[in-house]
């Protein structure tokens, strides 16, 4: 279970063992250390303040148990041990960190002031991680909305662009350049690659996503069977494109707009 902006403060008796001052939107939940083991999921930040009397061996055993339960296992969780201020815990640091898969997620504070400084840093890191997660899901959503076209299943439409594929079955940059009537240098410019890289790996996996837009555009070949007719269409001013030519759109990198237009043409969708 994910806990947004929550800090769990664990102590031997579950009371507030230290005063901490996290940023305003972060909530603090006090729990017993023993209760940590019962949690179904961990908060983004877990602060553990063991009893001063706890022996190092027990402390290290606790760290190992928490690590085995998954504490600080994912990149969105951090642990702050408040230990080492007493003589007993002075040399406990290594054993508090060692059991955890990623030592970067484990911090050790000596006192409340240390904890506050660490909280400022950790909460900021977590905010940035959350932003990146959001951006990543938005990209994934975008990828999901790139649903397969109904034309992907139509054999005659798929067959119309067979010439764009190499014997390996992958889309080939030189074949795309040939059909679109442009040089490899021009295609490389559209794809933001170097001409050398296209020549060296014309069917590279990294090109396939980009070339798939050109394949969708080339489906116009199901109707404009002669490649010269297709290339003529690429150079014609188009009312649907506010008078621009399809080639201009390719220059502008608006391949998807053009691929969508071709799909409308083939499926007769009123616009």
């Amino acid at each position, binding site marked *: 279970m994910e806990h947004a902006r929550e800090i769990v403060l664990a102590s031997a008796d579950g009371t507030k063992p230290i005063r901490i001052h996290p940023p305003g939107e972060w909530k603090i939940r006090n729990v017993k250390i023993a209760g940590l083991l019962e949690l179904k999921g961990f908060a983004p930040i877990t602060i553990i303040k063991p009893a001063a009397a706890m022996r190092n061996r027990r402390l290290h055993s606790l760290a190992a148990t928490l690590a085995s339960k998954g504490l600080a296992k994912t990149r969105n969780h951090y642990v702050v041990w408040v230990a080492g201020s007493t003589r007993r815990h002075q040399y406990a640091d290594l054993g508090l960190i060692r059991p955890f898969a990623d030592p970067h997620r484990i911090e050790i504070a000596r006192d409340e002031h240390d904890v506050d400084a660490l909280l400022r840093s950790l909460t900021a890191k977590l905010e940035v991680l959350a932003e990146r997660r959001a951006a990543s899901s938005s990209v994934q959503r975008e990828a999901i909305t790139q649903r397969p*076209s*109904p034309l992907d299943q139509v054999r005659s439409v798929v067959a119309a662009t067979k010439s764009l594929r190499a014997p390996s079955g992958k889309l080939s940059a030189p074949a795309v350049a040939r059909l679109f009537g442009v040089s490899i240098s021009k295609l490389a410019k559209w794809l933001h690659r170097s001409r050398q890289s296209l020549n060296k790996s014309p069917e590279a996996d990294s090109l396939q996503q980009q070339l798939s837009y050109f394949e969708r555009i080339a489906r116009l070949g199901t*109707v404009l069977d002669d490649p010269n007719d297709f290339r003529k269409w690429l150079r014609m001013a188009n*009312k649907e494109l506010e008078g621009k030519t399809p080639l201009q759109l390719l220059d502008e990198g608006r391949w998807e707009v053009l691929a969508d237009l071709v799909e409308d043409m*083939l499926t007769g969708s*009123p*616009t």
Partner: protein
Amino acid sequence: MPDVAEFERVLATAPTIRLRRLVVRMLPYYWLAKEGSADFLFTSGKPNRFNVKGVDCVYFSEDGETARAEYLRLWSGSTGEHQPRVTYFARVQLQRVLDLTQEKTLASLGLTEEDLHRSWRLATSPTPTQVLGAAVSQQTRIPAIRYPSDAAREAGEAGANVVIFRNSIRTPDRIQILGPRKEPLQSWPQ
């Protein structure tokens, strides 16, 4: 421009019409003939005049002439213009349709005639009609929009298109693709 939420509020009481008629669509013959069959109610989720990316809907013209104007706008000047074409028909029965050919409906939505004909394909942010479509797709009172065809207007004709939103259509409303038998080839709701 009203946002989706504002449109949604207006849609709750916006004037509507009842639509019971055949609608039509025209497309190139060759690929369909080779295939023999097709998904006539496919929704690609790609943007169009009344939908942003990801919204499932189908567009039809109200008559053959308008479908022809739509076809020609897309194919004019290419060798596809004079190739054989196919038309297919659907029967729609819709209790409440937002009719944007009526001035009072446009006024109730705060839209203008110009908004309806605004170019959308190269727009970098949703156009007013796309925002309206987004609002329609999120409710079920009104499953369709009737609007003047820009292609017909350009051809000097008067014609209308209909866009029907898949997630908004509920029985007894329906759209049926007509085939050789009494049973429709396809229909919504399924």
